[in-house]
């Protein structure tokens, strides 16, 4: 750092007016190459986000032409039981999904990391569900969990008359049915990420821990896991973004039912924007989803990128 900083400073002292020029001209091809992406980010991401937020304060119906109505859309949103149920569902599903995906993914990765035979075969099997879309996952599990046609029906036909597995038709359990399908689909990917992290831990550390007589589980918990911070953060971000936009799994598996007991916010947004023809209401819900993402993301971004000059 010091080596490069010195000549730069000297140059600035000699020829100050060219500083601006240098910022622009320095590595110009790279900047030109990045320009389309920068424009995309500014126009598509930032621009559309601002557009979304603005129109959530209007009474737009089918077309974004409504007039400003303040927080009316938000008042209606939070007075709607379907929205409130959706939010509660997402929080429950999100917390459980995050914990179980991480824990199960990590345990599977540790098991595979024991220099077992046919490792690549196991890895492939575990990762396969991830290659399926949520729609396919949802349909597959819908058949398995269907009380009359699926597992319950099969077991009863085989003679276990009292076998009951009707979570998908039970308003109190349907969320856990979703969770099963979600975990089946997502843990394999988490496992692969964790495995890559485990492989990144230096063999010397394991040797040192062994010499000190530290039990294996303790080495994992106190040494290896803290060293895998980067992988953990990546996994949390990927799982987290998957949770917030949870939509297709619900549509394929339960379509929000029974009743409204497995509704999620993204489905609310879609229904009110498109079939309900109420853009203002849909965008207000979308803005609330954005807000929740920001609330989660800001502390993390502060931890990751905040603090001058610190590098991980």
């Amino acid at each position, binding site marked *: 750092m010091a080596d490069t900083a010195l000549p730069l400073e000297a140059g600035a002292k000699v020829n100050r007016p060219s500083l601006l020029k240098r910022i622009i001209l320095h590595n110009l091809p790279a900047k030109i190459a990045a320009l389309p992406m920068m424009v995309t980010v500014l126009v598509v991401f930032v621009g559309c986000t601002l557009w979304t937020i603005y129109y959530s304060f209007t009474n737009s119906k*089918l*077309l974004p032409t409504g007039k400003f109505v303040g927080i009316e859309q938000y008042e209606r949103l939070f007075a709607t039981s379907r929205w409130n149920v959706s939010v509660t569902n997402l929080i429950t599903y999100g917390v459980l999904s995050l914990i179980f995906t991480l824990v199960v993914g990590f345990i599977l990765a540790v098991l595979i990391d024991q220099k077992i035979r046919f490792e690549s075969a196991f890895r492939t099997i575990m990762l396969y569900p991830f290659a399926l879309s949520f729609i396919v996952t949802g349909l597959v599990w819908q058949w398995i969990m269907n009380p009359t046609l699926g597992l319950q029906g099969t077991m009863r036909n085989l003679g276990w008359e009292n076998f009951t597995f009707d979570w998908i038709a039970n308003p109190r359990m349907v969320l856990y049915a979703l969770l099963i399908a979600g975990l089946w689909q997502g843990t394999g990917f988490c496992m692969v990420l964790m495995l890559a992290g485990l492989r990144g831990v230096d063999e010397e550390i394991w040797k040192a821990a062994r010499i000190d007589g530290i039990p294996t589980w303790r080495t994992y918990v106190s040494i290896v896991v803290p060293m895998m911070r980067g992988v953990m953060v990546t996994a949390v971000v990927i799982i987290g973004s998957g949770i917030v936009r949870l939509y297709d799994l619900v549509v394929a598996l339960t379509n929000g039912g029974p*009743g409204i007991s497995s509704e999620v916010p993204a489905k609310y947004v879609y229904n009110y924007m498109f*079939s309900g023809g109420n853009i203002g209401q849909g965008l207000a819900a979308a803005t609330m989803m954005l807000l929740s993402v920001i609330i989660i993301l800001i502390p993390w971004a502060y931890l990751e990128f905040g603090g001058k000059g610190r590098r991980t």
Partner: protein
Amino acid sequence: MKKFAVVAAMATALMGTTAAMAVDLEVTHWWTSAGEAAAIAEFAKAFEAETGNTWVDSALAGSGTGANPVIISRIIGGDPMGATQMNTGRDAEELIQAGLMRDLTDVVADMDIESFYVDASLLEPCRFEGGLYCLPINIHSWDWLWLSTAAYEKIGQPVPKDWNEYVASWPALQDAGVLPFGLATGWPISGVPGVLMSGLGGSDLVLAINRDKDASAVRGPEFRKVAEALDSLRQVISPDMMVPSFGDVGTQLLEGTAAGNIHGDWLQGDLQVAGGVPGENYECLPALGLGDQLTGGGDSFYFPKLPEGTDQAVLDAQADLARILISPEAQLNFNMVKGSMPIRTDIDLAAANPCMQKALGMLGNGLLPSGDFALTSDTQQQLQDLSIEFIDDDSITVDDYVERYASIIESAE
């Protein structure tokens, strides 16, 4: 090179002439089931035979929730189709107001459409500032109670003649292991409150709520009967007995595993495709066997304004299609296949089946505005959410239901 130029010139000349003779007109719709596709083919046949133009069929899956958004975004996004089907009602209201639809006043000026439309109210959603922007082409009604003959044979009772007899037969049905009311998950419940409203509450209640958006009518004693009927209905429905789609309920009725169902007249298409015969395998009670008027909506055709510089021949094709859709022959052929009621009073429907005959008899008493017809899709979505929640969650009392229904109607536009 020279040869190529000649061929190219010939080709352009040829294309030029064919374009002047026949044009392609893209038509979007969401009639994808077997019976529906056969019905729209009747229009396509008539259009191609009479004008020599080509009907480019763009069927979109997913009806009101899947296809409607696609149609709307294509029109808003500046890629309009030649013509499109949509529900009669307020779905396209804003598109008309924004000037995205073609005014058909001149096209049908000499047809005197007021004289043959079954009910003048059907044309109301199409009118805006003196212009006419769509043409209703059929009438659909939710107001049907379908009953299974096989189920009543099982319990040895005659098939009920109205809603009250039907409700009274529930305990016997349950004892025999027959589902009193078959129901599909999701949207099919959304039509039931409206049917109960016109059957049990009467025409005035429907008009007060759907047309006048009168919340005090919702809080009144007549609507309470509707809420209580819905409450008794949910006692005999359980989530694990629900089937995935309304067509499956049709199968249940024919098998006799379910005794009844409230659903729109399009269910009859499925019953007939499955081999059911009205009067033999199933019975139909319009307006629950109690009322004498049907609530109705249906489908309309819209003709989006095409971009500047569109070939005059295409515009003419639009006009031709508009006139053909409401012509007597096309109306008869289409509606006989579709199972819906025609919008014209002056055609002979002797060939219609007994259920349709009953409905046609009631049409003479005038059509009541259904929720699909009179409420915005936003309000419909809210009411649908409420009904789905109420049917499944016994902790919502009848009072809660009435109050929440009232507050949705209060905020309706």
